[in-house]
């Protein structure tokens, strides 16, 4: 059924209006603001300053550090969650007794509030906390994870991976079910092992989905705020400050609105590029299978 223009218009109008008001307006607001000095703490000299915010941003080592730390955070989170997720997906599809309960258990990390996840793991990663105790059992003298520069960022990235690995596992497991069984049965008769089966048959078949899951995971880890906020608050120093934390500091702690708007705009541009890529990819992968 192809619907009439009138029907389409009236069905979409409310949503379109909302997106327009609460999406386009803030974007225009940011664009206007990023050419101004708008400091609420040092109001002297507030007003339009052209591209000064961007030159300041380009020369701000802390911004580049935050960009790099964002990359590390997302990189570690993906490097853990994708392979481990694939492994768990294989485990799910073995359909061992109890796999139904196993799936339910996997749901739990995903539905917890990220902030609560952060709070729990802050407790667990505390010096002489649960993790240190577990590592002590096997004779490892654990560092104080959250108060060492560099280590704290990676620690929170692992926690992010903990929360979202089940998501990867469940999506990949569903995709694996669609891989034609007859080809694999034949291959098994030819005596290939499980690893060869995964590498040569299963993964190539679900490659488009894997890329999509990777992109989704990238976007989500890139915008992660809650866990970093509660676990390290960007610290020690600024060593675990990713772009969202950096942006939050300038906007809501230093109240340096003009500069924060410029940062926000740059982040939006980065996001848009990745978004375009996702949509292009989504269409391409759809075109292949339909």
């Amino acid at each position: 059924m192809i619907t009439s223009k009138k029907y389409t218009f009236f069905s979409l109008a409310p949503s379109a209006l909302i997106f327009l008001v609460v999406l386009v307006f803030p974007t225009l607001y940011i664009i206007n603001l990023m050419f101004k000095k708008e400091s609420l703490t040092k109001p002297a000299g507030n007003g339009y300053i052209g591209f000064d915010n961007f030159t300041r941003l380009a020369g701000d080592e802390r911004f580049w550090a935050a960009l790099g730390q964002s990359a590390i955070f997302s990189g570690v989170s993906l490097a853990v969650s994708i392979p481990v997720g694939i492994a768990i997906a294989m485990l799910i599809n073995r359909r061992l007794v109890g796999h139904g309960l196993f799936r339910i258990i996997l749901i739990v990390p995903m539905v917890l509030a990220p902030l609560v996840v952060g709070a729990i793991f802050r407790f667990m990663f505390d010096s002489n906390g649960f993790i240190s105790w577990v590592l002590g059992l096997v004779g490892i003298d654990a560092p104080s994870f959250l108060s060492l520069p560099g280590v704290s960022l990676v620690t929170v990235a692992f926690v992010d991976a903990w929360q979202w690995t089940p998501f990867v596992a469940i999506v990949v497991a569903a995709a694996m079910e669609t891989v034609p069984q007859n080809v694999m049965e034949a291959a098994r008769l030819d005596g290939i092992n499980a690893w060869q089966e995964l590498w040569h048959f299963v993964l190539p078949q679900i490659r488009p989905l894997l890329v999509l899951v990777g992109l989704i995971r990238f976007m989500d880890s890139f915008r992660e705020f809650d866990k970093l906020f509660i676990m390290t608050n960007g610290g020690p120093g600024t060593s675990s400050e990713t772009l969202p934390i950096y942006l939050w500091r300038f906007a809501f702690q230093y109240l340096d609105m003009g500069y924060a708007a410029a940062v926000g705009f740059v982040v939006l541009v980065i996001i848009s590029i990745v978004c375009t890529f996702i949509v292009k990819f989504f269409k391409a992968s759809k075109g292949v299978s339909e």
Partner: protein
Amino acid sequence: MSSQSIRSTSAAAPAPRRRFHPRTLWQVPQYGMMIIVSLVCLVPVAIMLRIALTPQVDWRQMPIDWFQPATWKSFEQVLASPFLHSLLNSFIIALITTLIVVVLSAMGGHALARMRGKNKDRFLFVVLGTRMGPAVVFGLPIYLLASSIGLVDTYVGIIAVYIVYNLAFGIWMMHGFFLDIPGEVEEAGLMDGLSEWGVFRRVSLPMAASGVIATATLVFILTWNEFFYAFVLTQRTASTFPTTIPGYFGAFQVDWGPMFAASTLGILPPVIFGILARKWLAKGLSGGLVD
């Protein structure tokens, strides 16, 4: 990757179940892995519960004494604090948000599913942008806007933000569910003399009922768990459950017991709804991209 081929459910397209097999011994390490993964998922939650039920002197005790008798002090303290007000706010705000988002996304999702051409792609692209952008980027202008029109710390303000925040998920999800309904059924409805609107209400919507429930559950969970906007846009009157958590973190020490007691109460609805709606969770969390 058509919507028919990949399903995030165990119900659809079940692979043949393997019963007893000579290679049973080989399954031992697999069961071992399953138990380890389950423990990794559950132990953090168990620790939260255990500490919530432990007296203050033992909070930092390692190893954790799992069999120590429970004390409900932390829960009593939390229930006597304004926390309940925030929990109730979470219910009200998540419920209203869910209702509005589901109605809007069912309408919009249906229209999009029946639409062809460039405008559809453009619309879906913009929608996706709201899914992908960090809350902090929109937080700044939304905060300035909300404070200039007096909507900070009001239900209206935070619900408005949450509608936008969730509408993308809703539209993508409902769009996907409506695509699964064959067009012939709707055409038959038109032949029977229903209007387009009538077809939507009496034919398509009932057929997409599971999609509506799935969307509602996901929107509820995401709204319930959202922290950043609530943190920035609410203070007391409209504060939600996540915003109360940082309050337990003092400069020198953390009130672990009450914080975990509050967390326990706060995670119950998402965990229950999440388990009930597990079939659709992956589809929703991927913004409808993976189905």
